[in-house]
């Protein structure tokens, strides 16, 4: 979308007094366009089963927040409560400071994109996108113009007269997106919108959604079970497990400093080693793992004598020659290679450590790296700073 269309898209809202709280700021300044969402002690029980058991979350204006978790974790239920399709059993939801728990869904002025697109099959693309504008009493001419702008924004110009059944999955999803934002909501909810698409299409749309988010400046709340997707798209991720938030933070923090075993294993892959804290030195914990003394970053309080689980990412480990000098403060381990899996840009090794535990090591393929064969003995090293207590 070129600059002039973008400016007009947002400037038009100045005259739209009838659209109340959903007007955007002037020109290209995106500050303040998104809604602030506040979830306080949200709970939802279905009969005796607790789907959501106490979720509290502050979502900032214009933030891209992802609710990430396995099936049944409560993330979709939470989204449905924000949208108004489920009533919380306890707790409150406030949007821009006003509680919305008593407001029916059609009055909440929130955009929503569903997993199966939910396009109206009996309406054309233009009629689908104009639907929310029609509910708000907009006149035909303005509707047509907004529809055209929306389609341009999702890169489907000229598709007005088609019917949903004539579109591919990716195109349908983009129309669903256009429909959800055409009425300038301050909050957009998305329930696993890319789940039904193939990998290539998904990746393209992920980037498009990020671009759209940057352009629109509104708050996005995204639900997915795909951790890679969450890492790519989000400003912050709330990892949800069994109705509670396991960890909340920016992608890098969740990846480098997981706070518990669930987050460490759900996001990316992790190696786990257990031991007992023996002391602290230079800001690193000294952990006795039985077969070796390892050093770990003191990311959380761990009194001496306490049992801890350490975790390291497989790609932070590397093979070393037995006599090589350590780089910084390192942990070392002797291993036997059990399995070698070549995956194009990477090689993935399954190793058996001295303690009998299985470890995963991921190495970038390159001219300098020598692929190790199963059965080989080797030594691996990784930085103590990359070893985290969970």
């Amino acid at each position: 979308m070129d600059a002039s269309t973008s400016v007009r898209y947002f400037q038009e809202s100045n005259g739209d007094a009838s659209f109340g709280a959903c007007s955007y700021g002037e020109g290209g300044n995106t500050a303040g366009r998104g809604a602030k969402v506040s979830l306080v002690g949200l709970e939802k029980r279905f009969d005796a089963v607790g789907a959501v058991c106490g979720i509290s979350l502050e979502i900032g204006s214009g933030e891209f927040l992802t609710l990430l978790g396995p099936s049944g974790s409560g993330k979709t239920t939470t989204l449905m409560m924000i949208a108004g399709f489920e009533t919380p059993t306890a707790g409150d939801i406030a949007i821009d400071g006003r509680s919305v728990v008593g407001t029916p869904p059609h009055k909440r002025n929130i955009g929503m994109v569903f997993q199966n697109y939910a396009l109206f099959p009996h309406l054309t693309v233009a009629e689908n996108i104009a639907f929310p504008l029609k509910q708000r009493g907009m006149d035909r001419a303005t509707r047509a113009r907004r529809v055209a702008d929306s389609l341009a924004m999702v890169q489907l110009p000229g598709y007005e007269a088609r019917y949903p059944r004539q579109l591919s999955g990716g195109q349908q999803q983009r129309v669903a997106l256009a429909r959800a934002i055409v009425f300038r909501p301050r909050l957009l909810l998305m329930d696993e919108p890319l789940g039904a698409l193939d990998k290539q299409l998904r990746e393209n749309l992920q980037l498009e959604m990020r671009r759209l988010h940057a352009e629109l400046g509104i708050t996005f709340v995204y639900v997915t079970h795909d951790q890679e997707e969450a890492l790519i798209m989000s400003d912050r991720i709330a990892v949800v497990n069994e109705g509670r938030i396991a960890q909340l933070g920016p992608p890098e923090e969740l990846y480098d400093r997981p706070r518990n075993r669930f987050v460490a294993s759900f996001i990316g892959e992790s190696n786990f080693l257990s031991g007992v804290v023996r002391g602290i030195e230079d800001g690193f914990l000294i952990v006795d793992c039985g077969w070796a003394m390892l050093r770990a970053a003191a990311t959380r309080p761990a009194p001496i004598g306490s049992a801890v689980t350490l975790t390291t990412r497989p790609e932070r480990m590397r093979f070393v020659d037995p006599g090589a000098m350590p780089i910084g403060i390192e942990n070392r381990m002797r291993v036997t290679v059990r399995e070698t899996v070549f995956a194009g840009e990477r090689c993935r090794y399954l190793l058996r450590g001295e303690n009998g535990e299985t470890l995963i090591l991921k190495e970038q393929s390159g001219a300098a790296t020598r692929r190790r064969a199963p059965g080989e003995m080797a030594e691996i090293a990784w930085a103590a700073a990359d070893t985290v207590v969970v």
Partner: protein
Amino acid sequence: MSYTGQGTATALIGAPATRPSRHAGAILLVGPLVLYMAVFYAAPVLAMLARSVLDPHLTLQNLVRLAGDEVFFHVFGNTLLTAVIVTLGTLLLGYPVALALSRMRGMAATVTLVVVLLPFWTSVLVRSYAWMVLLGRHGLINEALRGAALIDAPLRMLNTAFAVYVAMIHILLPYMILPIASVLRQVDPALPRAAASLGASPWGVFEQVVLPLSMPGVIAGTLLVFVLSLGFYITPALVGGPRDMMLSQLIAQQVDLLNWPYAACLSATLLAATLLLLLLCQSLPGVRGALRQSMR
């Protein structure tokens, strides 16, 4: 015989083996039914239709009589009017039931379905008699109203057009409810949610999303009820008055008088009217798709 070079080669090698028809299986399966229908349905109907112009010899006198028969036109008009009223009645009463049925799940859905289908499984004769019991001068309704001191003299409900409408609507309701419910069930449940999230009020969701999507079922149900109403016999015969006679009753009357050719002519008229109606509707856009969709 003369051979071309190719022909000789073919003749020497022999004709290529014929592949068994792909449709052989389908033909074998459908064959018996088609045969049955042809012998016990198509043939008698055609024979009956033929009687209207061939008995006792090729003649158009029955058609001429038909054209000048005032009773026929009155009865035909009444038949059409009754069919329209009954169709509208079943639509107005049946649509909400279909809507509710499509939203139910589990036990509630099963029970409701059984309640809707029960009249199906009861003989239409029994049901018509039941209406006589209900609507009669000393029937249940009148007795209840008199017992509650709401009326002094019994209301005249039986042997009226009102009775015919009520009874026919009751009997034909399942034919309207089931196609509509079937189509409504196929509607993606996310659609009403999407409409609500986009700002449509509950009535707006119904009017703009649910109703248009239910149209195939409505069309199928309407067609079904209308066509069935045209040919109804027992119910109007039992609960209707002499002025509410429908075409089938007229045909029966002629048969009673042993006036077979004229009866055949009247039947042909009924058949022609029905076929004409179906043909007309089929040509309307979307109706064929509607019928196909509601039969799933």
